[in-house]
C-alpha cells in the first residue's frame, strides 16, 4: 500500500488547496488592489482598503479618523466574547448535571444537546425572530411587564440568537471534562470540610478548565464570523464583521475593502487558534 499512502491524500489536499488555501492568497492580493469602477477590482498594490478601516477621506482628499468600522469590529469582539462567556457559565451546571446521571440518561441528554445543532441555522434564527417579535411570546411578555419598543433589532436579540446557535459546541467539551473527574476528589474535598461551593471553585472548576477553554475556542471562532444573527435579529442596523464583509460583495460594491475586512477577521481567528495551540502544548509539556 506504499503508493496509496500519497495518492490517498491527493484528493483532500487538492480540494482544500483549490477551495481554501489558494483562494485565501487571492483574497490577500485583492485586499491591496484598487476598487473596480463597476464592482470587482483592478490589480494594484496599495493599502488604501486597510486605511479605509480607520480613516475616511472627504471630497478634498483630507483624511480624518473615522471610528465607524472600528465600532463594528468592537461590537463583533464584544458580542463574540459575551456569547462565549454566557455559554461557559450556562454549560457548567448543565454539563455537571448530565455527567452525574446514569449512563443511559447521560447518552440521551447528550443526544438532546446535539440535536438542535443539526437543524438549519436559518430556521433556528427565524424561530427567535418570531419569539422576540412584538406578537411573539417573549415580545408580548416584554410589553406586559411594561417594556417599551421592540426587542428585535437590538444587540440583546443578537446575543440570544448567538448563544442559542453555538451553545452545543460548549456543552460537549465541558461535559467530556467533567465526566473524567474522579468523584473521589469531590469526596476528599468534603472530608476536608470544604463546602460544596468551595469544592466547585477549588476542585471542579480547575479540572474542568481545559474543557471550558476548548469550548471557548469552538464558540468564539464561529461567533466572530457570524452572519445570520446580525442580518435577521439585528435587522441590518447592528452590523458585525460578517455582515460588513457580506455587503461589500454585492454588485457595484467595494471588493478590496471587503477582502481587507475578511483578512482582519481571519487574522483575529488565527490569533485565537495559535494562542489555543500554545496553551494545549504548554499543558502537554507540563503533564
Amino acid at each position, binding site marked *: 500500500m506504499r503508493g496509496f499512502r500519497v495518492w490517498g491524500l491527493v484528493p483532500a489536499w487538492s480540494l482544500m488547496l483549490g477551495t481554501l488555501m489558494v483562494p485565501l492568497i487571492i483574497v490577500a492580493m485583492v485586499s491591496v488592489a484598487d476598487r473596480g469602477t463597476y464592482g470587482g477590482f483592478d490589480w494594484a498594490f496599495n493599502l488604501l482598503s486597510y486605511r479605509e478601516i480607520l480613516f475616511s477621506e472627504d471630497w478634498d482628499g483630507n483624511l480624518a479618523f473615522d471610528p465607524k468600522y472600528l465600532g463594528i469590529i468592537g461590537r463583533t469582539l464584544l458580542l463574540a466574547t459575551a456569547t462565549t462567556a454566557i455559554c461557559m457559565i450556562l454549560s457548567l451546571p448543565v454539563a455537571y448535571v448530565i455527567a452525574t446521571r446514569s449512563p443511559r440518561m447521560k447518552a440521551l441528554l447528550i443526544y438532546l444537546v446535539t440535536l438542535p445543532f443539526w*437543524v438549519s441555522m436559518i430556521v433556528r434564527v427565524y424561530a427567535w425572530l418570531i419569539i422576540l417579535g412584538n406578537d411573539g411570546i417573549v415580545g408580548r411578555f416584554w410589553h406586559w411587564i411594561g417594556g417599551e419598543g421592540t426587542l428585535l433589532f437590538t444587540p440583546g436579540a443578537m446575543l440570544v440568537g448567538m448563544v442559542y446557535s453555538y451553545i452545543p459546541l460548549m456543552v460537549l467539551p465541558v461535559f467530556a471534562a467533567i465526566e473524567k473527574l474522579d468523584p473521589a476528589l469531590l469526596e476528599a474535598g468534603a472530608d476536608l470540610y470544604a463546602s460544596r461551593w468551595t469544592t466547585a471553585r477549588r476542585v471542579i472548576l480547575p479540572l474542568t478548565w481545559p474543557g471550558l477553554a476548548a469550548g471557548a475556542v469552538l464558540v468564539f471562532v464561529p461567533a466572530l464570523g457570524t452572519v445570520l444573527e446580525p442580518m435577521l435579529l439585528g435587522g441590518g442596523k447592528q452590523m458585525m464583521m460578517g455582515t460588513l464583509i457580506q455587503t461589500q460583495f454585492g454588485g457595484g460594491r467595494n471588493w478590496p475593502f471587503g477582502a481587507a475586512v475578511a483578512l482582519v*477577521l481571519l487574522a483575529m481567528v488565527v490569533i485565537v487558534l495559535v494562542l489555543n495551540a500554545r496553551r494545549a502544548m504548554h499543558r502537554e509539556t507540563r503533564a
Partner: protein
Amino acid sequence: MSRHHNVRHYPGAGLVTAVFFLWLYAPIAVVIWFSFNENRLVSVWTGFSTKWYTAALSNDALLDALRVSLIVALTATVVATLVALSAAMVLSRNPDMRFRRLSETVVNLPLLLPEIVVAVASLILFSQIGFSNGMARLIVAHSAFCTPFAFLPIRARLQGMSRDYEEAAKDLYAAPFTAFRRVTLPLILPGVFAGAMLAFVISMDDFITSNMLNTGGTTTLPVYIFGLIKRGTTPELNAISTLLILASLVLALLALGLSARWMRRG
C-alpha cells in the same frame, strides 16, 4: 446518605438544566406549532389548519430551490465522503508518516476558518478564473466544507476497530484493494454512512456560502427561505421550516444513532 449530605449534589443545577433544555427546544416547538395556524399572522393562534403545507408544497419557486439544494447536497456528499474516506484510510493506517498532523489539519481546515471568509475567497477565485456554472460552483464549495464532517466519524471508526481482520486478509494473500473492499469497508460502513449523512445535512442547511455564490438560477432552499423571511414572517414559512426541521432531525438521529451503536460495540 440523605440528599442533603450528597457532596455531588448542587442545589439549583437541576433547575438550570431543566430550563436549559426547555429553552433549547421551545423555539423549534414554536415554529412547528404555528405552522398549523389557520391565521395569516404567525403568532396569533386562531385554529388548526394544514393549508400552509398545501401552499408550500404547491409553491414552484420553493420546489425549484429544493431541487437545487438536493442536487448540490447529494453530489457534494458523494465527493466529500470519497475524499474523506481516502484521506482517513491513509492517515489512520500510517501513524508515523511524514506530514500526518499537517494533512489532518488540512482536511479539517473548513472547521477552523470562518465560513464567511472562505465564501468570499471562493467567490473571488471562481470569478477570477471564469468558473461561472452556478451549480458546479456550489458543488465544489460544498464538497470542501462537508469533507471534515464526513472525515471525523470515518476516522473515529477506523481508529477504534481492531486491525486483526486486515492482517488476516493480508496473511491470506488478499491484494490491498481486495482486503479494503471485502474486509475493511464492510467493517467501517456504518461510519461511512454516518459521515455521509452529516455531510448531507451540513450541505442542505448551508446559508453563508450558498448565498455568496448565488447567481439567480441556483437559489438553494436556505437562501430562498432567507428571501421569504426578509419579506416578513408567514405561516407558510413555518410550514417550510417544519419540513426542513423534520428532515434534518431524522437524518441527524440516524447518523448519531449509527455512530453511537458501534461506539458501544467497541
